[in-house]
C-alpha cells in the first residue's frame, strides 16, 4: 500500500487521531512527499516536539509559512499555527474599519477567546488551511489537528464559534438603552446580575463591550465558516486517520472514524505507527509450550520473550485489522517501531519509505 496517490492528487489532507500517535510527524512526511512529487506543499503543525520543529525551521508560532530547502523538485513549506494571530487577521479581514478591528483586538474578552473558548484552536487550524488553500497558492495543504479529546471539534468548531458570536442575549445588550430595557426580559436581567455577582461586573462589561465592537461582523464570519466547512467536505480534501496499535489509541481511532462517518466524510487512509515487529510464524501458544519444555533454563526466557512479542503482535494485528475493516476501502499503512524519534529531514525521509513504498504489508518474518 502507498499513500502516493493521495499526495499526488489531493489539495488538502487533514491528519486526525489522538495525541501522541505521531500525527505531526506523519503530516510532515506527507508534505515532503508532495514536494518530491513536484508540488508546492505546506504543512500546518499544531504542537510539534521541539526537535522536529527545529528540523522544519520552526522556531516560534507564526502566521506565515517558512520554506524548507531540500533536494526536491517542488516546494516544502511549514508553519506552527498561531491561533491568536490567525484570529486577528480574520478580524481585520471582516471589520468594516481598521479602527473597529483595533478596538476588538484591544478588548480583554477578545484576548481571552483564542486561549479559553474551546474549539477556537481547532477552528483556526481549519481557517488557516482554508486560507493557504484559497489564497496561499499552495497545491497541497497538510494539516495536523490539535490533540483534542473531543474528537471532531475541528468540524464542529466553525459553527460553534459563529453560534457563540451570534449569542442572542448579547444582541439585546447591544441595542440602544430604551429598546434594550423593553427587550431584555426580567429573567435575562437577573441572569446578568447573578453572573456579575459571581465573577465580577467588569467581566460582564468586557463581554458586552466585545459583542458591541463585533457588531456587523458576524455575517462575514458565518459565511467564512461555511466556506471552510465546504472545503472540508470537498472531494479534493482527504481525511487520514493516524493511530498506534495501543488499545486506547485504537479506541479513539474507532471513535474518530464513527464521527467522520456521521459527518459524511470518509477516512481515506489509515496510518498505524509503532507496530511491533513479527518475529515468528509459530503461534504464541506453541511458544509458551516450548518455554515450559525448557522450564528452569535461560532458553525458556528466550521462548517466553518470543511468545510475549508474538502474542502482542497477534493482538495488534487483529485490532488494526478491525479498524481497517471499518474504514474500508481506505489503504492501511503500517509503520514499525523505530529506534528513535524522528527529528530531522533524513528521519522524515526514512519514515516516508513506509508511507510511500510498501509500508502496507505486515513486517516480514525473518527467515521466511
Amino acid at each position, binding site marked *: 500500500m502507498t499513500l502516493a496517490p493521495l499526495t499526488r492528487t489531493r489539495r488538502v489532507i487533514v491528519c486526525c487521531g489522538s*495525541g*501522541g500517535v505521531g500525527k505531526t510527524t506523519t503530516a510532515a512526511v506527507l508534505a515532503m512527499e508532495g514536494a518530491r512529487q513536484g508540488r508546492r506543499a505546506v504543512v500546518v503543525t499544531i504542537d510539534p516536539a521541539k526537535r522536529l520543529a527545529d528540523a522544519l525551521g520552526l522556531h516560534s508560532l507564526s502566521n506565515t509559512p517558512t520554506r524548507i530547502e531540500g533536494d526536491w523538485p517542488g516546494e516544502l513549506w511549514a508553519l506552527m499555527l498561531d491561533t491568536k494571530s490567525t484570529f486577528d487577521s480574520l478580524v481585520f479581514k471582516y471589520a468594516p474599519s481598521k479602527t473597529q478591528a483595533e478596538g476588538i483586538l484591544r478588548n480583554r474578552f477578545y484576548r481571552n477567546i483564542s486561549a479559553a473558548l474551546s474549539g477556537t484552536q481547532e477552528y483556526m487550524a481549519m481557517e488557516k488551511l482554508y486560507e493557504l488553500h484559497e489564497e496561499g497558492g499552495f497545491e497541497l495543504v497538510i494539516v495536523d489537528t490539535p490533540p483534542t479529546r473531543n474528537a471532531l471539534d475541528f468540524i464542529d468548531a466553525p459553527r460553534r464559534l459563529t453560534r457563540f458570536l451570534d449569542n442572542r442575549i448579547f444582541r439585546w445588550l447591544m441595542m440602544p438603552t430604551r429598546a434594550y430595557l423593553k427587550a431584555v426580559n426580567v429573567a435575562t436581567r437577573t441572569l446578568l446580575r447573578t*453572573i456579575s455577582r459571581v465573577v465580577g461586573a467588569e467581566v460582564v462589561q468586557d463581554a458586552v463591550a466585545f459583542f458591541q465592537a463585533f457588531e456587523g461582523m458576524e455575517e462575514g464570519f458565518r459565511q467564512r465558516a461555511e466556506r471552510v466547512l465546504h472545503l472540508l467536505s470537498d472531494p479534493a480534501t482527504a481525511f487520514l486517520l493516524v493511530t498506534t496499535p495501543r488499545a486506547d489509541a485504537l479506541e479513539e481511532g474507532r471513535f474518530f472514524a464513527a464521527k467522520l462517518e456521521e459527518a459524511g466524510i470518509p477516512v481515506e487512509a489509515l496510518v498505524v505507527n509503532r507496530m511491533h515487529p513479527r518475529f515468528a510464524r509459530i503461534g504464541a501458544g506453541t511458544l509458551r509450550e516450548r518455554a515450559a519444555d525448557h522450564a528452569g533454563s535461560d532458553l525458556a*526466557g528466550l521462548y517466553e520473550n518470543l511468545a510475549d*512479542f508474538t502474542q*502482542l503482535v497477534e493482538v495488534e494485528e487483529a485490532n488494526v485489522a478491525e479498524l481497517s475493516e471499518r474504514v474500508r476501502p481506505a489503504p492501511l499503512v503500517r509503520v514499525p517501531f523505530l529506534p528513535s524519534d524522528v527529528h530531522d529531514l533524513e528521519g522524515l525521509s526514512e519514515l516516508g519509505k513506509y508511507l510511500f513504498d510498501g509500508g502496507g504489508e505486515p513486517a516480514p518474518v525473518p527467515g521466511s
Partner: protein
Amino acid sequence: MDPARFCSQSRLVIVAGKGGVGKTTVTAALAVMAARAGLRTLIVEVEGKTGLGAAFGRGELSYDEIELAERIRARTLTPDQALLEYLEDHGMRRLSKRLTNTGFLDVVATAAPGIKDILVLGKVKQLEREGDVDLIVLDAPAAGHAVTFLQSARGLLDAVRVGPVRTQAEQVQELLADPARCQVLLVTLPEETPVNEAVETADRLRERVGVHLLGIVVNGLYPPMRGIESAAALLEGVPADEAEPLRAAAAFRQSRNELQREQLGRLREGLALPQLRLPFLFSPELGPAEISGLADALTDSVGALETVP
C-alpha cells in the same frame, strides 16, 4: 519507603502527564496500593471515557460515587457538573439550566478563563476538606492541558478581582501550594519526546503553579527476562527455524532495553525526583488482574525509595 507512608504524604495526589503515557493506569495502580495499605481512597476523574471503570471490571464512572473495590471509591467531576453543584450550593439552581441553554456558559467561561477548571478544583478542594477519605487521587486532564488546568487559579486571580469565584480561586491556590494537602505525581514513558515533555511539565508546574511534585512514574519498562543478554550462546543447537526468530526477538528486546535505560538516565539528569517504575504489559487488556500486578510493581518501586526523614 513504606507504601502507607508514601501515600500519606499529601491528602490529594494529582496524576498528570501527556495523553497516552498511562495516567489512568497509574491512577488505578496508586489507588490499589493505597487501599491495600489501609487508606480509604477516592478516585476522581475529570474527563470521562478514561476506561478507569473498566480497569476495575466496571462500566464508565458517573457523578455519583461508586465503590470499585474495598476501600476504593470513584466518581467523575466534569466542569458542567461542578457548575451545577456550585450554583445549587449558592442558591442559584434555577439559573444553571438557563446558563447552559443560552450558550451563556461559554460566554462566561471566555470572559473569565479558567473558571471551569476552578469550579472542578474547587469541588476537589471541598472533598479534600471534608476528609471523608484518607487519599484522593485525581486523574488530571490529558495533553498539555494539565498545566493550564492547575494554573487556572493563578490566572483567575489576575482576571477576577472580587466575588465568590475569586475566593474559590484563592482557596484552590492555597491547596495547590500546600504539600501536606496536595502533590502532583507525573507519569511518562521511557522515550525521547515523553521524557522531554515530562521535564518541561515539571518545570512549569513548579514555576507557574507552585505545586509540589511527589515523584515521577516511568511507565512501560520492559521487565527483565533471563537469557536475553546471552542469546547467541543459548541458541547453539536450537533448530534454525526457531533459533532465528528467538534471536531476532531477543535482539529487539535488548535494543529496546538499552534505549529505555538511556531515557531513564536522561530523565534522572533532567529531573531530580523520586523515580517509580511500572512494567510494559504484553497483554492488551487492562483489567483488575493487570491493575493488581501493576500495584505490586508500584509497591516494590516505592519500597526501593529511601525514606526522607
